[in-house]
């Protein structure tokens, strides 16, 4: 008898599609103001603040533009910019 394949989900980024499309505002990091405290990295609910050693970047493919990183940055190094303006 033929067995039905078990419908197992596979771990993958983008389980809701390209969530970067959800954004209205886009976080833009001003590297000269960044003091590498990594607070944006630890607080991002999406894991879309990419940490390379102690510096940070944004994964725009999945960043939802929630604005937490900008709100928590102690030196105001992250601006939330309206998508169309970019």
């Amino acid at each position, binding site marked *: 008898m033929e067995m039905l394949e078990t419908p197992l*989900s*596979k771990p993958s980024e*983008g*389980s*809701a599609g390209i969530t970067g499309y959800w954004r209205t505002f886009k976080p833009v990091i001003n590297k000269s103001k960044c003091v590498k405290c990594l607070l944006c990295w630890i607080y991002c*609910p999406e*894991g879309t603040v990419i940490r390379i050693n102690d510096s940070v970047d944004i994964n725009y493919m999945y960043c939802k533009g*929630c604005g937490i990183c*900008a709100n928590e940055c102690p030196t105001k190094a992250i601006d939330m910019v309206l998508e169309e303006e970019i």
Partner: protein
Amino acid sequence: MSLKIKDLPIEDYWLSGNPSCPGCPASLGLRLLMKTLGPKTIVVIPACCSTIIQGAYPKTSANFPILNIAFAASAAAASGIVEALELKGRSNVNVVVWAGDGGTVDIGLQALSGAAERNENIVYVCYDNEAYMNTGIQRSGATPYGAWTTTTITGKKEHKKNLPLIMAAHGIPYVATASISYPIDFITKLKKASKIYGMKYIHLHSPCPTGWRFPSSKTIEIGRLAVLTGTWVLYEVENGIFKLNPPSNVLIDRNKRKPVRSYIKIQGRFSHLTEKNIDELQRYIDRQWETYLKLLSIGKIY
């Protein structure tokens, strides 16, 4: 030595691009949970937002095993997993329950209480967004006094159920409160809990932008205000010894606590409150603190 953000692993097991709302505390909580405990962890999740935000077939945002289980059953299911692992001689796997406040404070309470009484080897984390969010913001036992929900349209009449103290009354080895706004404190508590044998309970305060009616950028700020106003208190009960954690430990002095108004004024769910309502909330907070100060003076409470 205390943990530093720089020392935390870069690796995430909770993946980007999941269906959580922007600014979601459950998504951040799962990310921190798994960053801390690592992939040798089995997570049991009852019906809640965290079920949905795993994503839809054929993808899942969880790069770790999850047992999704009926609402009332998470602590019982986790107990079964612990027994099975013990029979197989596998002692290096964390068994965790990750449940909402509805699934903990109300619907999962009897299974949780039973598992606590049996001192099952589980880390139980309740992420408390103070209502049944996944089904559209209905009040739970964890919803605070005055809060609007779709089932308390003029504001909830009762105060929040104090589940961490109810768990402490079980005499389990470890009970802690935590907040999504204090990740190092939460991670330190998770690490400690994972090394203790028996039942561990962590109650994680989790402001939800969708249900509490605030902008998605304010999740962390509002959680911090909950702590700084003394509305949410960070503490541990380790082997019966009650201890306040920073910054709550400096808020023993009532004058150091911000007024509750500064916490509620930026949340839409409290926008209808009258002065009388706000006074009642403040009185409740002050009463809770009297209880904590008594526990502190007793030291070992069980």
